[in-house]
């Protein structure tokens, strides 16, 4: 529960860090980004569809955002990741409605695109730091 390491972590942000560019969460995000739209195209139904698409729409952007933001506080990391996921869904859905392009496939693809952009940005930054 102690957050005594937070200050040390903050200092560490200013210097170069050796980290693998590809991590397990990054791979999970990448897989979900492909599997989500694929699930729609394959017309999955029932529990598998719900499980896969909730993961693609909620978990993938949350993980990508957490990886990109790299917030020192783990609780805030989770909250910000979830908030970013919900925001992605809301903003893309709203945009699709106003553009008269409403479709689950476009929503899932848009969310996957946002996740991939965050993933690439995080990977690029971590690789160059």
């Amino acid at each position, binding site marked *: 529960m102690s*957050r005594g390491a937070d200050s040390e972590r903050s200092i560490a942000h200013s210097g170069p860090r050796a980290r693998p560019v590809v991590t397990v969460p990054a791979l999970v995000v990448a897989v979900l980004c492909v599997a989500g739209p694929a699930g729609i195209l394959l017309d999955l139904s029932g529990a598998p*569809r*719900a499980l896969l698409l909730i993961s693609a729409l909620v978990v993938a952007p949350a993980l990508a955002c957490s990886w990109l*933001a790299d917030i020192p*506080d783990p609780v*805030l990391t989770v909250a910000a990741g979830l908030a970013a996921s919900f925001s992605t869904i809301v*903003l893309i859905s709203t945009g*699709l409605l106003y553009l008269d392009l*409403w479709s*689950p496939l476009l929503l899932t693809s848009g969310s996957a695109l946002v996740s991939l952009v965050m993933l690439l940005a995080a990977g690029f930054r971590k690789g160059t730091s």
Partner: protein
Amino acid sequence: MTDVLTEADTRTRPDPAAGFPHAVALGAVGLAAVGLTGYGAAQVTLPVTSDVGLVADLPPAFWLGFLALNLTMLAALRRDQAPPALMAVLQAGLCFVVYGTPAVISDSPRTEVAWRHLGVTQTLAESGWVDPMIDAYFNWPGFFAGLGGLIETTGIDPLAVALWAPVGNGLLWALGVACVVRALTRDDRHLWLALWFFTLTNWIDQDYLSAQAFAFFLYLVVLALAMTVVAARPALPLRGQVRVRGALAGLRAWWTHRLPTEQSGRLRVTGFVLVLVLCATIIVSHQLTPFMLLAAVGVLTVTGRTWAPRLGLVIGLIIVLWLSTAASTYLAGHPLLFVDSGGAVESNVAARLGGSPGHVLVVQVRTVMALACWSLAGVGFLRLWRQGVRDPRPVLLFAVPLAMVPVHTYGGEMMLRAALFAAPFTAYYAAAALLPLCRRTQTGRSILLGSLLAALTIGLVVARFGNTRFDMFTEAEIDGVARLYQLAPDDAVLIAGANPTPWRYRDYTAHRHTTLTDLCQTELPDSCDDILTETASESTGGAMVLLSRSNLASMRMQGDVTTQAFEAFEGRLASARHTRLVFRNEDVRIYHVLPLAPGGRR
């Protein structure tokens, strides 16, 4: 974060592994207590039979479980260092009990608004575009668009989403409050006590499936980011600067020389972008929260507590942009802000104080709960002040929502909304007041804290579930409304007795929906018959009038009508030549009022 007082810093930290069996035992007891409350709640049968709500119907098993859960938390708090996993499990258990009890009792979502929001969501998802002429929801459609997208994409049952939304929102709120409190204190005991207090005093009942609940979570995350990664602190003392440079120049120097709390510039920028995205989501989703957000960010900026001085300006610009484009249809016919303060007080306070003795008691308990929480928060503020913790942020963020009350009536709910937005900081300060009561060596004080938690538990159940006689619907009422939609001719006006009706979840725009309380005001006098006839004649399909158990309970409990007046009205309606009873079950009657033909004949 130099303002943070760290009582935890002075505590010795024993080996966590030494208390592992104890923690596991406490966790097991906590889960068993949650199970016991669930078992107790499952014994309740609908409809709720008392004007004070569920408190009269819940069996001893529920109360025993709730008491045991409180005592388990107290025992965990008395440990020198409780494992976060244990505390999180107990907190999640409390959220399940507080927000999930109605879902254990009934398979149907509670409150009419949750049903209505499903209808808004379905309308957007089915039409695939936004018609801002429909109503206010379609001027701030973000949340409903997102919900519709999620439901349509994943295929999950919308009714299940609405049923369990309070538990999901409660957990998200707890997460958001945890982030906010962690920005203010490093004392874990303070954190967990604040979370417990927040949940145990949250009678405000805004956690149903709604844009408000969703926007409140985002609001908490924005505040947490603004108080951590985007935060700043003044580098120079204000008094010294004013003394040396004069008032204006001193103030300017004090405000300009801020130091970012977060050392990493990249993290600050990332946090800033994230804040903007979340703000945009709030602005497209909800009418009120953007203004609360703007005010909160505004005070943080003015007091030099944010690294991004133009954050408030950017949020304001996005709000103006949205209001002048997507929400302009609604604003053309409605005031955005600013009503007279007398009207605000009338609609927020006076209008809620009437009704049956049971309902008045519930309102009084709510008032006492709010005043007691704020008093306790005042004690906590003084305690922290005496200890040298003089961070202005929590007190400002507590005061800002309450200062917004005279600005808008928000349908008579502004006081409730303001109390909700102030609640995380109320909990922060109240927990500071209660901290001395959970020391391991002070058994007497712990008994006092246990008694307080027990009293809050009873107060919460009365205040939160005080309307369940009319906002929890029976299966007969759900079936009756389904029949209403099957029987209603195209274009018919649908009229319910009062708002608490589980309708509008379908055919949101196909029919005009209204209520007798809207058409006739109170007491349903004889003139109401003529109004009904005129309303039926406005459409070729006439009017379908649905009268239900919850309608009568709502109108009677809130003092809108007596049972005799309601029955007299229904007697006149049933015997009218132009009306026929088309459906009846134990809780619902549906009448079809035929429209007048040209010349006044039917």
